């Protein structure tokens, strides 16, 4: 512990100078001697068989080194799914093992050449012919009778408590609506990039833009039948990931091509390949039905969601999770269905499920409030449950009512006019909306870390973790400094390399707490080892780890007792440094308790009377996510999630041609992520009440910020214009009813 803690301080990012000066080297920029460059050739049909691949022209193009197709690809096992906690894949589709086409955009060849320009050109000369099979592409034709998945992120696909349909029919007041959200694509600005160098037939190094180093290593071991220790995966800086930089076919193909070419190969996906080779977020169709008594309490809460996956996939988008946790009701009817389509795999995209699921639920609540003529925030307070409404577990910490109250005060919610279409500034209608946010707390099992202390008084924490911009290196150094009792500038944090102890994937807003738990274990191992090294004349002689505390750069008996500095212990033992390594304790904190992050989103929009254009003019997010380690990086996480939510509300849609299954707007010019001009100043605040069961008393902040955003915007658009938009994005034509 630190007398003057650094946890809770707005410490600047450690990688700031490197990132603002261009010095930070991302995956495609790491120099690797003798590298050749690869380009994918991808299918232009969604289903069928490859009947022929003509490589004549491509082979004779200048600079071509090798071309791999399913004819000469090595045998490769199927990559394990992310959900298994062994791998990081979203699909069990084999990679270039057969002639079968499973989606439009599936890689069918990989061309390796001396330069990127030569690889691009040669790839354009590959001629592929197909025998078409009937493809499953039209969601509306296939949704009826869609099956329940085996599970939804490990939870039951359906939760039935009482007879919700009967309760709905009997309710005094009812809302029963269908909400739709389109496909989305992550659009990290750094495209996926991989370089693979084989050292011999049994060992390789892969530099990869990934948020799952350890699991990529395990995947390569499985796919290529290699020993884990012969595979090194390096990922120092990742240019945004948002759930998409997991294990896809391109890393496997790059590795196989490098073996074929007998030299290192680099594959950087083109932007259109990012859209078509990797998967995004499923479209959703969601029915939310609410039955209420005259006093506003809920008699029925029904949330039925149908989502999609690709062929052979495993990711059912957890749209109904908010409805399972947010509100108390007499009856619940929760059900999820999945339609398998010939599209890229569904993958985890920031707040998977919760972001789009909350759009449906939180809009429906707003509609109910209007019917009951109750303020939508007041109405939510009437639903506040004493315990988790569908599992009955007590919440470890839930301060949502306080967030509502403080958020409303700060935003000035009381000044809102509840009557739609009642405020105007010139041609702009003004409206305000609110929505609740929640996201589950997760601590993934399996993470490890090491802590090394050196005779010069520094400590180094190592784990194969990821820095995609969340501030991992900074906040973990802060935590370790306090935990070890060292000044911040004497703590190093090393990550991004599978040579470090294994880490969990950076996902589910779980990395920070997972690393902290493993640092706690590593520190305990280190302390025990240091205590063993102390001599018999040390004040620490005979003390156990529970008898001591870490402070002032050393180990001291509890309650201000005597002790020794680490350098002192190390010097006397004749050691330069000492390392302790440990595995995080099993995540038992969720066994008896429901643990969630919460929040509430307030926004103001301006809607143009003539054109129907919507501009977000003001935002406040008030969050209940436990203790915040670094207010600066946490604020950026919250804001960034809100920005992505605004994109989903107003402009983002991945357009598939339902005849061909092909992504049409596979560019950043036509897939509209928000630009500077779309984003107002975003105010972010939090309660900061510690969660007593979470390591460090903190919960995830990366995803809860996106939940409720689209609903808050839609509710504000209704308040501004009197138009309910139940399908995203909220484009001018929908606002005008054209």
């Amino acid at each position, binding site marked *: 512990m630190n007398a003057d803690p650094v946890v809770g301080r707005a410490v600047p990012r450690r990688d700031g100078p490197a990132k603002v000066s261009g010095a930070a080297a991302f995956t495609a920029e790491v120099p690797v001697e003798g590298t050749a460059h690869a380009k994918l050739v991808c299918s*232009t049909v969604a289903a069928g068989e490859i009947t022929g691949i003509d490589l004549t022209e491509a082979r004779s193009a*200048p600079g071509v080194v090798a071309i791999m197709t399913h004819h000469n690809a090595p045998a490769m096992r199927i990559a394990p799914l992310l959900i298994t906690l062994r791998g990081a894949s979203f699909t069990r589709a084999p990679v270039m093992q057969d002639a079968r086409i499973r989606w*439009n955009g599936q890689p069918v060849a990989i061309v390796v050449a001396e330069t990127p*320009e030569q690889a*691009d*050109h040669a790839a*354009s000369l590959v001629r592929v012919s197909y025998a078409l099979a009937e493809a499953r592409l039209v969601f509306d034709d296939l949704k009826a009778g869609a099956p329940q998945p085996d599970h939804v992120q490990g939870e039951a696909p359906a939760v039935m408590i009482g007879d919700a349909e009967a309760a709905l029919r009997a309710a005094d007041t009812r809302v029963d609506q269908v909400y739709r959200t389109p496909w989305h694509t992550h659009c990290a600005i750094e495209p996926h990039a991989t370089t693979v160098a084989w050292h011999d037939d049994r060992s390789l190094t892969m530099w990869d833009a990934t948020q799952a180093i350890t699991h990529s290593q395990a995947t390569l071991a499985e796919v290529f039948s290699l020993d884990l220790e012969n595979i090194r995966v390096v990922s120092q800086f990742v240019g945004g990931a948002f759930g998409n930089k997991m294990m896809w076919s391109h890393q496997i193909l790059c590795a196989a091509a490098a073996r074929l070419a007998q030299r290192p190969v680099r594959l950087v996906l083109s932007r259109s390949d990012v859209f078509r080779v990797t998967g995004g977020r499923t479209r959703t169709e969601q029915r939310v039905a609410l039955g209420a008594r005259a006093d506003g309490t809920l008699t029925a809460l029904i949330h039925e969601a149908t989502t999609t996956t690709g062929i052979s996939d495993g990711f059912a988008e957890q749209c109904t999770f908010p409805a399972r946790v947010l509100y108390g009701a007499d009856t619940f009817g929760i059900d999820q269905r999945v339609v398998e389509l010939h599209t890229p795999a569904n993958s985890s995209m920031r707040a998977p499920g919760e972001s789009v699921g909350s759009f449906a639920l939180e809009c429906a609540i707003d509609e109910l409030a209007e019917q009951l003529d109750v303020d939508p925030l007041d109405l939510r307070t009437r639903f506040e449950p004493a315990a988790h409404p569908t599992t009955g577990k007590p919440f470890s910490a839930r301060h949502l009512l306080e967030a509502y109250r403080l958020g409303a005060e700060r935003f000035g919610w009381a000044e809102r006019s509840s009557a739609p279409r009642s405020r105007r500034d010139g*041609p702009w209608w003004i409206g305000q909306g609110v929505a609740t946010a929640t996201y589950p707390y997760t601590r993934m099992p399996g993470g490890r870390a090491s802590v090394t202390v050196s005779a010069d008084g520094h400590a180094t924490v190592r784990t194969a973790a990821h820095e995609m911009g969340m501030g991992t290196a900074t906040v973990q150094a802060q935590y370790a400094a306090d935990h070890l009792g060292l000044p911040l500038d004497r703590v190093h944090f090393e990550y991004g390399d599978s040579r470090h102890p294994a880490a969990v994937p950076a996902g589910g807003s779980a990395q920070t707490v997972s690393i902290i738990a493993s640092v706690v274990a590593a520190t305990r191992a280190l302390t025990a080892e240091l205590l063993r090294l102390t001599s018999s004349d040390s004040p620490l002689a005979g003390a156990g780890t529970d008898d001591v505390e870490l402070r002032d750069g050393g180990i001291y008996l509890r309650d201000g007792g005597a002790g020794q500095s680490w350098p002192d212990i190390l010097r006397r033992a004749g050691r330069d440094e000492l390392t302790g390594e440990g595995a995080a304790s099993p995540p038992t904190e969720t066994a008896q308790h429901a643990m969630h992050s919460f929040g509430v989103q307030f926004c103001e929009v301006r809607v143009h009377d*003539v*054109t*129907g*254009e919507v*501009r977000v003019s003001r935002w406040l997010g008030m969050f209940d996510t436990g203790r915040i380690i670094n207010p600066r990086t946490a604020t950026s996480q919250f804001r960034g999630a809100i920005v992505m939510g605004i994109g989903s509300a*107003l*402009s983002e849609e991945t*357009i598939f*041609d339902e*005849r*061909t299954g*092909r992504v*049409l*707007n*596979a*560019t950043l*010019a*036509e897939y*509209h992520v*928000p*630009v*500077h*001009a*779309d984003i107002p100043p975003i105010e972010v605040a939090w309660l900061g009440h510690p969660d007593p069961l979470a390591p460090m008393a903190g919960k995830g902040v990366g995803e809860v910020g996106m939940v409720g955003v689209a609903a808050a915007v839609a509710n504000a658009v209704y308040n501004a214009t009197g138009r309910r938009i139940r399908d995203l*994005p909220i*484009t*001018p*034509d929908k606002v*005008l009813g*054209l």
Partner: protein
Amino acid sequence: MKPFTYQRADDVASAVAAAATTPGAVYLGGGTNLVDLMRQNIERPAALVDISRLPARIEIGTDGRLRIPAAATNTDVAADPVVRRDFRIIAEAIVNGASGQIRNMATVGGNLMQRTRCLYFYDAGAHCNKREPGSGCDAVDGHNRMHAVLGASPHCMATHPSDLAVALAALDARVHLAGPAGQRTVELRDLHRLPGDTPHVEHTLEPGELITTVSVPAPPAEARSAYRKVRERASYAFALVSVAALLEVRDGTVVSARLALGGVAAKPWRAASAEAVLTGAPATRASFERAADVALADARPLTHNGFKIPLMRRVIVSTLEELS
């Protein structure tokens, strides 16, 4: 990208000569559209003649016309004090398009010659009569939200993406050309062709012809003007619809009117019939609504772009109201 040769021209004559003597040559301006299309293997020239460094001084000619060299960048045009004072919708249209970086690169000639953003045109895996004549059009029954409602044909319903061209069309701009056969001038409104059954023929330039200058007569001194654009994000997006309008009103009566529509056709769409309705009419909302109806009388919706017609109507009416 297919291999090509590159040469740079320092003046119009050498540019035209180079293009005439180099098989498969095309002119390269700022490259913001051409290089992108080459990288997608949609444009596959054998040779580039770089004209981006041709003289680019904007001036008022002795005939009083604004003369914008084709190699002038969009930014330089938008920043020009004379343009901003006397031809303001040119500047307004430019700053409504693309991004600061693209406007710094893109030339006026290249802006006029840029190709459609039709998603099927841009996807070498799709059918497109513009890209491959006779191969069919996937937009007809496909995703055609951004497509044309005016002047389309069953073979092609792509739109022209330029903002600048819409303003120039409203201003009666002329395009000055140089080619192997000498120099000539065409009206801007005659530069682009509607698709008909030859959508791959997009303009009236002869092979090897180069746009050298765009000239614009001074608009009526009393006229007020505006460029209005509707899009799906606040900036850096192509138009759903756009309107360039000039309106001269005296004593409550429209003396003259010019109206050009963007985002609705394969060319900047000059709504001459609406102008005729407006001229001499009272400057009232009723007149503007009638003009909008006339302008859109021949508009035909596709599966997904029907909204463009009432949206355009609203924007026409409100823009004219604002100017009256």
